[in-house]
């Protein structure tokens, strides 16, 4: 599973953010989703979806090695994190998410739920294995 985006299809609905937060925190709180939906309004009037491509830049700057490769993803160990935010600054896509009620930044673990629930096929699996739910 490898996240890929087709931003021209994004409608800004934030289902991705919501299902991400629900899957990882069990909370109805899209502010805890591990990706970014950026609207460029009033002009040019489009959305850009920013997802983690598991580049590992965050892992390389973490002073306590709290971000480790597991299968295809770099996973942030929330217990090991010291909240220095170096990873947040380093991320080239701005998808290490900071939330006031979470001590550690929030990082995508490549679970694919956003692919399964994006109504627009704006977030896809580049490996073609995970698909939107439904027939």
């Amino acid at each position, binding site marked *: 599973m490898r996240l890929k985006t087709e931003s021209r299809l994004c409608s800004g609905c934030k289902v991705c953010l*919501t299902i991400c937060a629900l899957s990882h925190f069990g909370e109805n709180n899209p502010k805890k989703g591990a990706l970014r939906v950026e609207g460029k309004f009033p002009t040019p009037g489009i959305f850009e979806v920013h997802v983690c491509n598991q580049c590992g830049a965050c892992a390389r700057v973490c002073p306590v090695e709290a971000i480790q490769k597991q299968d295809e993803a770099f996973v942030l160990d929330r217990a090991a994190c010291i909240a220095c935010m170096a990873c947040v600054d380093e991320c080239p896509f701005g998808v290490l998410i900071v939330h006031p009620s979470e001590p550690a930044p929030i990082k995508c673990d490549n679970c694919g739920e956003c692919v399964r629930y994006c109504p627009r096929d704006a977030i896809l699996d580049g490996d073609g294995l995970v698909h939107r739910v439904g027939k």
Partner: protein
Amino acid sequence: MNGYAGNILRVNLTRRTHRIEPLDSDLARDFIGGRGFVAKLLWDEVPPGADPLGPDNKIIISPGPLTGTFLPGAGKLEWGAKSPATGGYGDSNIGGHIAPEVKYAGFDAIIIEGQASEPVYLYINDFDIELRSASHLWGQGALRTEAMLKEELGEKYQICTIGPAGENKVLFACISHDFGRQAGRTGIAAVMGSKNLKAMAVHGTKTIPVADPAASLEIGKQMFAACFNKPGFVEWTPQGTAGVTDWVNEVGAFPTRNFTSGFFPKYKNINGEALISRIKVTDKACYACPIPCGKYSRVRKPQYDVHVEGPEYETIALIGGNTEIDNIEDVAYANYIQDEFGLDSISGGNVVGFAMECFEKGIIRSEDIGGRTLNFGSVEDFVWLSEEIAYRRGIGNILADGVKKASLAFGGGSERFAIQVKGLEWSGYEARHAPAMMLSYMTADVGAHHNRSWAITFDVATGRDKLEGKAKRVTELQHIRPLFDMLCLCRLQWVELGFELDWYPKIFQAVTGQARTWDDLLAFSERVWNLTRCYSLREIPGFGRSADYPPARFMEEPIPDGPTAGKYMPRKVIDRLLDEYYAIRGWDQKGIPTSTQLCKVGIDFAEATIAPLRV
């Protein structure tokens, strides 16, 4: 209380204070949220006889217990106030992303009281509440104001604004949000303007508590999957609501030339196909919606280059057909102009169409408007008049009060073609050959609005000349549709895809912990329907049956052409429909709920107020 944020924010603009109060559990238990809270709080808290544009009116803003949680369409917000357009109950619903943000900030309702001494905006950042100066925003367009606040505060803030029309208390001014969503009807933006409240900026980070997290996640997932599997799920989105334009013309129900006719010969130049092939940029969604109806567009001609969300069907109807602007680019441009001024484009198109007919008939003369014209089909005239209205200049000052009051000021028989009910302009469906739809418009609580009960397919399917069963169907729809405004969910998944209604009680229970059947929920909606009727009865002298009639044009003038040529609805048919409707509703023949009915729907507290009106 699961599903609810648990708090009400009360803001006093006069004293520049605010208070965060716990949500009253009786209010939640008996009125659910959204429109239910609006109706009950207006009844309880706005003193009878209050001037809608005075300091005693209140603005109630309320999402529902399911808003901001995980199900399709969970992103709607209800606004309400005593309406300056009708003098009675007013509410309007808005999509976009403001509703969940109000929940994440921690509120089930925001009550705005009093009147600020100078322009302010309401700043909400979780529980950090401020009234900030809006002196730099006052005078700016509704869209421009949002852009300025986004820049000032950051993209993460959700912004609602009024434009110059709201500032100038135009009675059909609208509240704007997310660069193209509006709470358009009943003039609540004029109430904001009267309170010197230019905007609201909201940001929240909290989690919404749910009763059964596992069940609500699972049901939510099933609901999204069910939408995805609906036949036509993919096909509906590209044109959105504009896609109905052709059909409405084919059945002769398209507002044309100030509702003279029901068919616009040039409709193919302003339909959904024209929109997607010539101007659309992006399909834009409200929160959690899988079928984004927003059509964000760019229109470019030598005279202009603008971006606008739309035109929606209603705008195509009221600006396109109703003022005969015959190309999608000019319709979208006129839409943009009214959006920036902060004018409801439904009333806006209706009012301009009315003025154009007055000009055609010599009731408004060129000398009255500085030698100018107001011709059907002229986007230049449309744009000029919209500006005059927004700034209440000259003839715009009269029209800014809506077609009902303007027709009384103009005279000349113009009341017969002031297309409104109760003081709210008629929206996008000509109904002279659709009795259920006609009755829907006559009896919608806020005035001539289609969203309470949309029944044209029912009329076509069961017989357009038949009256049997129409009042019953309208009553049913008037419970179903406004229920969505209490839950503060979008109706369109049900309306457009046929998404099954029995999903909603399931998710309601999983989120709130309350076991309610769909019929239980409809009973709450019937309660609120009767309460809003009582509110208007309390506030408007002489309100009742006489306020439930359509304009004379519809009762007396045959449609001149098109598929419904020759049709009109004589008064005796109107009376038959009303008689049957009141009987079904448990109202007397004056259109006043009986005491039995008030008791049956659980609002006997209104009896003391209503009883004297029955004699």
